[in-house]
């Protein structure tokens, strides 16, 4: 199933007026995200948060970066779907130009991307941006 793009997600989330619908939407996105096969959940791809673990697999082709992610927590998985909606199959320059903090603020989800949140989301964003920076150099 094709996941919605970032603009579509912003529209969808703006439509809901209570937290329960918003998070049900995020949970459902998380359940739709394919995740990683167990064989791909290798230690070098593990980004450890204090509450949940996240795996990130990166592939490069035609100057674009493709990401596969997985988390043991479904809300984090849903939030990762939001992150991928912004970064998936983009060039390193596009990735680095994208303002993820503004995006999460627009989604009214900035509490999830604060440096203190131990869910690994911030770490994943950092890893994606590092990968993009390395791909540029």
């Amino acid at each position, binding site marked *: 199933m094709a996941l919605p793009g970032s603009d579509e997600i912003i529209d969808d989330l703006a439509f809901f007026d209570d*937290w329960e619908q918003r*998070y049900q939407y995020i*949970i459902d996105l998380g359940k739709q995200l394919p995740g990683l096969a167990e064989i791909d959940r290798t230690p070098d791809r593990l980004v450890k948060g204090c*509450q*949940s673990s996240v795996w990130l697999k990166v592939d490069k082709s035609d100057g674009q970066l493709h990401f596969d992610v997985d988390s043991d*927590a*479904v*809300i*984090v998985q849903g939030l990762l779907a939001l992150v991928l909606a912004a970064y998936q199959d983009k060039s390193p320059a596009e990735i680095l130009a994208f303002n993820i903090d503004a995006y999460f603020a627009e989604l009214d989800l900035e509490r999830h991307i604060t440096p203190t949140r131990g*869910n690994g989301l911030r770490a994943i964003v950092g890893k994606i941006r590092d990968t993009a920076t390395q791909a540029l150099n």
Partner: protein
Amino acid sequence: MTFDVNALRAEFPILSRKIDGKPLVYLDSAASTQKPQAVIDAITSFYTECNANVHRGAHALSDEATRRYEKARDSVSKFVNANRREEVIWTSGTTESINLVANGLAQRLDPNDEVVVTEMEHHANLVTWQQACEKAGATLKIAKINDAGELDIESFKDQLSERTRLVAFPHVSNALGTVNPIVELTQIAKSTGAWVLVDGAQGIAHGGVDVQAIGCDFYAFSGHKLFGPTGIGVLWGRFDVLNAWPVWQTGGEMISDVEYLSATWGALPNRLEAGTPNIAGAIGLGAAIEWFLQQDITALQQHEAQLIASAMEQGEAFEGMRLVGTAKNKIGVMSFLLDNAHPGDVGFILDRQGVAIRTGDNCAQPLMKRLGIGGTARASFSIYNTLEEVDALFAALRKAKSMLG
């Protein structure tokens, strides 16, 4: 005297807070308890009326600060029934208290020596002893628990030998709520001649700790889990044991005479308290204890027993809930897993409903592995929680179950 939980709650300003417009249901007291106004006032009063360093000023403020600070030590001494006030050492918390003992122990251990702990330790009462044993080449032995989360007394006995130098165990398990039979365990451990340290981090806030009755050598606890401020804790130690314990941090306050190339140490408690102490913290903790002692402690204990009984009863009846830690004698803590949901997800959905719990490994990774899980959600209860809040927890859990299921 009838116990009125609402009157008690009114003394804790934070409990009237709203989270996203919903009443706060604070079920994370095992991580840190909230503070009554009396504690907040004592700290404010220190800073507004007599802030100065202790034991060294030639002026009124320092005298007043010193009086309040040492009065707090008396409060602790009375609260745990110490033999004498010099047995109360200020630390930054349980972790530092245990580190103080472990640091001295490492200097006294031989390679053939053994230290015994249990499978239910949190990291503070495990990693510290690992390090002490590693430094000395000594062996750390681990007493087993059963699947309900109770210590296996036979296994505990099996770990002990004439080589055992120190035995450490928790008064109450932070992850499971198990109340250990600390008097019996101390008796068994002392029969080998070992020192005994009781980790009181989770035990102290339920009242009734009597170190003389326990018979241990050390009892460690934190102020912030006893309605006091963070950054202050206590190591209680038997006078003759503490008096012979190696000094650890050195510097001001703990010395007697200092030359350029040598120094001698002061008397207890100062010899184990280097540098300017956490004066406001000590005074705040003293106020917390005086406040606690004004309560009807038996009534508080009955109330707490009702809270955990109600939680466990509803937990057992809750479809899809696995209770982690089902000891017969438990207090304060209900750890659980809900269906196949990640505890972090459960905690998040609860938080959105104003219900604050802890999720994760509970600072006890080996224990989680022993139980075959990665972590739990943990609701913990204190004297100011209500039976209605226990019900609110389960209402919030029903919502989490339907959203995550």
